[in-house]
């Protein structure tokens, strides 16, 4: 009996580590790339080097932490409305 081997690439630690490296690398690359193009800031503050990167990371971190804190109050059991 022959089973087709399952595609489980994402399950291996080695590959996960590779993905982490790729993520960090891509992030760094997008920031470095800004040095080679001429950006057109709309307002005064968004001309700071890597502003979009900063905004992306900071706002998402705040959103995640805010959601986590709100979750302490707002999260209830699945059957909350059935009881």
């Amino acid at each position, binding site marked *: 009996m022959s089973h087709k081997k*399952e*595609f*489980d690439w*994402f*399950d291996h630690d080695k590959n996960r580590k590779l993905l*982490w490296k790729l*993520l*960090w690398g*891509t*992030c760094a690359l*997008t*920031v470095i*790339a*800004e040095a080679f*193009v*001429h*950006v*057109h800031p*709309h*307002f005064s503050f968004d001309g700071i080097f*890597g502003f*979009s*990167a*900063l*905004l*992306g*990371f900071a*706002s*998402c*971190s705040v*959103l*995640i*932490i*805010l*959601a*986590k804190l*709100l*979750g302490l109050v*707002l*999260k*209830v*059991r*699945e059957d*909350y*409305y059935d009881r």
Partner: protein
Amino acid sequence: MTASLLFPPAFILILGALLVPLIPGKAKNIYVIALPALAFWMISQLPHGELLSVHFFGHDLSLLRVDKLSKIFGYVFTLNATIVCIYAFYLKDSQQHMSALGYIGGALGVVFSGDLITLYFFWEWMAVCSTFLILARRTPKAYGAGYRYVMLHLFGGLVLLAGIVLHINGTGSIGFDAFTDRTLASYLILAGILVNAAAPPFHAWLSDAYPEATVTGGLILSAYTTKTSVYTLIRGYAGYEILIVVGCVMALYGIIYALLENDMRRILAYSIINQVGFMICGIGIGTAMSLNGAAAHAFCHIIYKSLLWMSAGSVLYMTGKSKCTELGGLYKTMPWTMIFGTIGALAISSVPFTSGYTSKPLIIEAAVNQHLVWPWLILEIASAGVFLHAGIKFPYFVFFNQDRGLRPGEPPHKTMLWAMGIMAFLCIFLGCYPAPLYALLPFEMEPHVPYTLSGVIKQFQLLMLSALAFFVFLKLLKRTDTIAIDTDIIWRKGGRWFYICMDKGLNFVNYAFNELMHKGAATGLGRYFSEGPLNMTLAVLPADEAKREQITRYFRAGISPIGLSVAVAALYLFGFIILTLP
């Protein structure tokens, strides 16, 4: 243009829906696909103008007002409907097909209506038809959600009706154009529309009801009610500044709740609120570019959101599960569903070369052009947040994350995969070549160049660093088997609260009144009228003990001798006169 083509596209779907149960087997599904395709073709043939008016109860109703704005929505509604019906090719349930076609027909009716009465009719028609898509799941939860859904929409409809009646009385016109006079009537109509647009606090019907609908029901619902509202707002409320605030709140609200959610379809439901927030903000800004942005974003949103719901629907169809805590590792056996779902997730996140990137920046750029710093910043933050919850969270927790041992395989109906494939193609096509979409935009504006090197780099920065934040804080995002309390608690628990309020409130008043009137005043009065005359008589009538007892008995029994009664009455009268003398 022949007269036969001046048939409102809405009626093709609504009247066509009536024939669905009569058609047997596979022919039924082909017929269901053909109807919206036919409507699409008819819309493409319609010339601009007010093409069909009907005299009704003293008013000239305009059933077919065609311009660029109604056409772009007409196109995307029918295009989406055709592809959704391809997805639903496996479905044999005539009731679902009928409600879906009726509902989509209602949405087309709103889009092509030139007056407020026709608009109201189709508005309520949509509410009724869409409810059946929720009830069709036939579970107690779906029945509850459907009930709450229709009650809230009827409430919204009543507010809309009140506004329409006031507007017609005030202006004498039933025409549906921009509400330039900001009156109570126009604000009531706005409130009615915002209920359907899922604006807080009346948004929770969406996240409550859509995830309870059937696999195809949720998919169909996700496209029409909110986008019909967006169309109505573009036509009637462009430049109402309050909409900038409403839109920004919606954009952030949707993200926070989508982050809290465990159910994959509920995540997608909240991301609708987030995306509609962008559109409403654009409408509030009110320039040609921002309104075009709202219309373009509605167009692209319908396509990628349908793709996401199709992908989630396939997972639900194959596994019977929709909670992130029960899903994971599906990439192994559902690769196509994963790939298509991920393309939808990238498109919703405005990743360059997907459709979101060619529509959303129109709104953001319009905010910049108007020097709106805060709305711009909030929309940028919301753009990053979309990638967080819909772009990564949905595919990550459903297809990757922890393997739960599920091995469902791709949906057995190839049409489901074909429909997803077409939608995915459209997402990428409109992302790489947006010219056909831009040609449909309703307002004249300077040509928009979506792709500049700096723009693409900035967008990748924003998104990649959002992705980094997601994976850095992954532990905080661990799913729990919970739901999050939203404003629907008001109407879900409202009945119980209403009972408690009435019980504690009104019954308290009842009790206090009983104590005061029945036990207090009535007893006092009774004693006054029975004991008063006796005491007075005894006070003025000197008599021995036996006589006093006899008089007491007479008075208590109400049989006092006539002479005595008259004497007492005279005494009372005398006393009363003395007391009331000035």
